[in-house]
């Protein structure tokens, strides 16, 4: 069948997006597979479509599409935009080959999970965001000849980004600012300088597998955007690096506050002039100097009945030749000795609790 040509603007009457898409559906039902669409900003051109005959391919040559050209597009669909396209090119692309020879607006390749998106110019902010890779299918590829806007590849979960940085030597970053925030999967190859990347990702040199992938990919990419002459310049892999998310276990060692006190804080503590601070911590019940109270024995009243000796829960009291004593290293100052003593020979007294 011949190519189906659709003009969307007659006089001052513009075909709406719905009218255009309905026309395309009808033509596909008639068996058309090749379209040339002279658009006027209509949205969603080329998406979620398949040819009437199984196995046939759909092709769209589009001028001046609106947003989301090739969104939800499927394997077997090829979309070619000669000039530039606005936002959301290839959103949720699930298998189409989408070529934009000019620039793309913001969020190009957003959530793409399959297919290939080839861009002969620049792409806007948040491009490549949330790309994913469903292991049942080939990973999505997103090739950009020049550069991306800021916040690119945010929350990326899988797939492959290739940012060639062509003609971008003057730029501080071919991926804008704060790229790859929240990136957890996939890989981004880039050529040239980049600014800050999120702390959760790491920048590595290419290995031979990477280079083989790029080598093969460049042939298709450059052919699609009519820039085959650039291959030699772009395949000097010494200018390339890749970004991958850090593995989960590669977390940074934390510097505890205790370490900070020991190494950075005022030596001996800020109260060191007044207090001999040993930083020891007493439990709620303790022995020795940390006790709130301590028993004192009175020889005069003691009748050597040994009740205290038997009742002391810490076995702190001992008797030697009718002299009773409480062992400071055992006594917690509970007061049981004083309570059970029939003659009040044990009395409890506050320990020395004033700090010196």
């Amino acid at each position: 069948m011949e190519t189906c040509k659709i003009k969307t603007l007659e006089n001052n009457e513009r075909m709406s997006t719905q009218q255009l898409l309905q026309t395309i559906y009808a033509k596909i039902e008639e068996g058309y597979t090749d379209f040339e669409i002279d658009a006027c900003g209509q949205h969603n051109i080329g998406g979620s479509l398949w040819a009437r005959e199984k196995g046939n391919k759909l092709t769209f040559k589009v001028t001046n599409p609106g947003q989301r050209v090739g969104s939800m597009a499927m394997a077997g669909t090829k979309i070619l935009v000669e000039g530039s396209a606005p936002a959301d090119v290839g959103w949720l692309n699930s298998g189409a080959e989408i070529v934009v020879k000019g620039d793309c607006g913001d969020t190009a390749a957003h959530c793409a999970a399959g297919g290939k998106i080839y861009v002969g110019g620049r792409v806007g902010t948040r491009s490549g965001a949330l790309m994913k890779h469903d292991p049942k299918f080939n990973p999505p590829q997103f090739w950009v000849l020049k550069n991306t806007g800021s916040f690119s590849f945010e929350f990326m979960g899988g797939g492959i980004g290739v940012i060639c940085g062509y003609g971008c030597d003057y730029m501080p970053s071919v991926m804008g600012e704060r790229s790859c925030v929240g990136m957890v999967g996939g890989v981004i190859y880039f050529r040239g300088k980049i600014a800050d990347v999120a702390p959760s990702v790491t920048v590595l040199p290419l290995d031979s597998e990477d280079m083989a992938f790029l080598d093969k990919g460049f042939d298709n990419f450059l052919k699609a955007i009519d820039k085959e002459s650039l291959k030699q310049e772009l395949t000097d892999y010494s200018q390339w690096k890749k970004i991958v998310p850090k593995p989960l276990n590669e977390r940074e060692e934390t510097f505890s506050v205790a370490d900070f006190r020991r190494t950075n804080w005022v030596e001996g503590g800020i109260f060191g002039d007044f207090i001999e601070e040993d930083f020891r911590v007493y439990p709620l019940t303790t022995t020795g100097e940390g006790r709130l109270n301590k028993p004192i024995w009175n020889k005069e009243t003691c009748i050597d009945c040994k009740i205290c000796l038997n009742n002391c829960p810490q076995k702190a009291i001992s008797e030697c030749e009718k002299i009773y004593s409480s062992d400071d290293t055992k006594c917690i100052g509970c007061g049981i000795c004083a309570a059970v003593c029939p003659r009040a020979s044990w009395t409890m007294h506050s320990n020395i609790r004033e700090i010196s």
Partner: protein
Amino acid sequence: MCRIGAIKSKKYLHPSVSLKLMRSQQKGHDNSGFAFVMQDLGGIFEDYKDLPTLSMAATVEGTRRAEDILHDLGFTRVLQWTPDVHNEKGLKIEPMPNYIFETFKYPKSHKYATKEEKEELLVETSLLLRKELEKDNIGYVYSFWPDVLTLKEIGCPKDIGTYFGLWEENDDLCAKVITAQCRQNTNYDIVRYAAHPFFLDGYTVLANGENTFYEKNKLFQQKLHKGYIGFESDSQCFLYTLHYIHKILKWPLEYFKHTITPLPFEEIERRQDKDVLLRIKASLGHLEINGPNSILAVMPDGKLLCVCDSKKLRPIVVGRDENMVIMTSEVTGVNDLMPRRNISQDIYPHEREMVIVDNDLTVRRWQQ
């Protein structure tokens, strides 16, 4: 979200180009209105560039009252232009009875007045007119300024174009700077005053966005200048801030960007001008904006400028050739008007950038 556009040209352009600029971007707005401001006027207004032109839409009573006020103040009319309206059946438009575009001579008292004094008079007068017409809801005063013409209406942009005969080009009505927007209002009532572009004291601003610091901006601006009124749209805040920074404080234009979207502290700390930037951030913290925005402006001297929010959450593109520069939301509009331009010259302004178009169409990109 709405779609906005600004065109600056070496040759006079008919306002139909603004309809064509916005046409392909129709999906991005809701067809609820159309408004444009023309500056650097040609055609029948060309010989009156120094005299103020009143743009308003009013009832008969409103028209009479406005003319009485101007008369009492000593303004004398030198030119009147009324669009031929085509009230075809089925047009989606809610027209006002009268559309007034009249040029006046300054009162005698201002014969030897300085430019500043004349500007002051025009601001005072437009505020007075607005107040008087608002009382009985009898009309809307959009601009009263030399070499500026404003039209705002509720309805479908295409139909508004048809109603005012704007699709047919003619030489009566043309300008070298045209700004336009195709949506009546964002989240508030449909009010004519709420339609961009907004105009004050020689400054024109239109925006595509959601200024989530509207409340803060508004409370702060209300006390800054008598002309900061209305607030029917959160985007008016951008006009007032631009006016305040540039006209009242007389700061260089770049500080508009520093005020509305200050750099992160981390970056300010590394800069030589950090003391200045931190002071501005503290003093004008209530003029900071948040939320997604792209903003276009025409300065009193005819320069265009464009800035975005700090996360670049709304689209904007600049396309150009030797005779014309277009700034608009989506590249489709540029493609329609300048299909053969060199697209590698297009600029996609980013979150840290201000793009300024000088009167000779030189495009400067300033990095914050």
